[in-house]
């Protein structure tokens, strides 16, 4: 009896929690279809803000920048981070474990300091050497820098879960380093590389602060566009852009749910 009441209480708690988690997103989606510019009163369904959105070149450019930045940085990050995770695995016992602290640095450092440090660094390099002017290039570099540790740790964790004898077997069969990578490491690490690519993509798209500080005038991303629109007090299309981003997140979530169901990987 008492336990039953407790369970009902927990049920109510769970549904309240879901409301808390999804209400802000639902409100954004709902008001993106509002006929008037208000987030307090709904004056009928309309697609006005979406029409404005796609006729706005600045927003379309921002969308392209977001996608290019996420894909480029994630691809570079899984190559470099994957190698790093592997290297750390093989070096475990060779007095280089202090290096692992280097990996944790980007993860514990406040992103605002990370972003500002990179901004002033890129500006200084640009002034003295004439390279690395703030723009999409510097954003890719900054994103790779914070994605690499996550990829390295995921790949490293996967390697630690393997039987070490597998590596010896590969070596005993006189496989060249290239053959070991191609026929042993890549297949074994496939799932870890796949999930770290997805994680790197998410990290890149989710990031605002570091992008904001390393961006140039021509490399606005969607979050940066939304930010400056709010700051200028121009909000009509913001809900519509945000809805598109929320929509892609949900498609992404569904895919990952089905991928999980389809795979036998725990």
């Amino acid at each position, binding site marked *: 009896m008492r336990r039953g009441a407790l369970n009902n209480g927990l049920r109510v708690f769970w549904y309240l929690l879901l409301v808390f988690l999804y209400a802000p*997103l639902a*409100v*954004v989606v709902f008001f993106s279809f509002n006929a008037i510019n208000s987030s307090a009163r709904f004056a009928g369904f309309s697609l006005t803000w979406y029409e404005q959105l796609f006729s706005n070149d600045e927003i379309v450019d921002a969308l392209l920048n977001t996608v290019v930045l996420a894909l480029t940085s994630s691809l570079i990050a899984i190559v470099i981070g994957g190698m*790093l995770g592997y290297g750390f695995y093989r070096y475990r016992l060779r007095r280089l474990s202090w*290096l692992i602290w*280097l990996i944790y640095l980007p993860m514990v450092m406040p992103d605002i300091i990370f972003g*500002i440090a990179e901004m002033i660094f890129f500006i200084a390099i640009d002034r003295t050497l004439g390279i690395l002017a703030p723009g999409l290039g510097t954003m890719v570099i900054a994103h790779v820098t914070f994605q690499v540790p996550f990829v390295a740790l995921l790949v490293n964790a996967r390697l630690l879960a393997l039987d070490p004898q597998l590596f010896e077997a590969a070596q005993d069969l006189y496989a060249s380093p290239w053959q070991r990578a191609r026929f042993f490491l890549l297949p074994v690490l496939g799932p870890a590389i796949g999930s770290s690519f997805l994680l790197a993509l998410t990290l890149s798209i989710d990031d605002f602060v570091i992008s904001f500080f390393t961006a140039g005038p021509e490399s606005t991303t969607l979050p940066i566009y939304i930010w400056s629109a709010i700051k200028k007090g121009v909000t009509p299309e913001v809900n519509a852009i945000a809805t598109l981003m929320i929509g892609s997140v949900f498609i992404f979530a569904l895919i990952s749910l089905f991928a999980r169901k389809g795979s036998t990987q725990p």
Partner: protein
Amino acid sequence: MSSLRRDTRYLLATTAPGVFFIVVFLVLPSAYLVGMAFLSNGPYGLPTPPVSLQAFRELAGFGFLGWSPGNLYTLIRSVWQSLLATAIVILIAYPAAYIISRQPARWRPLMLLAIVVPSWTNQVIRSVGWMNILAPGTPVSDVAVWVGLTEPQMGLFPSQFAVIVGLVYNFLPFMVLPLYAAFERLDTEQVEAARDLFASPVGVFRHAVFPQTLPGLMAGTVLVAIPAFGMYVVTELLGGGKASMIGNLVARQFVQASNWPLGAAGAIIMIIVTLLGLKVLRDLGRRLGGDREVLL
């Protein structure tokens, strides 16, 4: 011997690119930023020689008009808001993690996904959502006005309340996930034993559940309290200057180019507080956990 050397070279080659990125694009820029704090504030806010501790004096509140405690308040507010948000996150995450761990195994991934998905949308977008909900004239604000929480025309945003809501919203998943991992490994026999010994629900939690979930709690606290202290987006968008934290203070010195050395000095304080926070949490985890292995 030669094979060992070749191996070493090969393994060094695999780690070099990653180490290069982190050293060149994170360690060096941070060192450059830290060094900037010890220079003087030149024209346009740019740092110039001579070396001085002027920035730290200014940060402590010494200006043209004598001493003012504004920056000190900001630092204290940052720590306070981060701790308050963490405490609320813990109160919500414990039952949430417990509920998920009690469900049939096939439901759990879906429930975890339900917790995590909102955090996949951008921080800026999540803040826009809360701005929409808490703005003056919305039903939620109307209720708050009716209850007497806030004045009409004001709404709940921008305010310190909105900042706390935003922080809790942002960091909740980072507490639920490690707590859930701890609950999933929970030794239920200990819990049964405590019940058999007629422990009250509080007693069961205190003696059987809490010690076992402590590693998850500590890991979650590190993932919530530390980044909440360094928060920039939520405070800037939802606080409207009323609840800004040290990160906003630092950023302002750079974005508006008013005083780079002062901003750099603020960044150093942020790094020191972050490291101190990590140390305090680790010591606390060790003391509470006794001989138990704590994830830090």
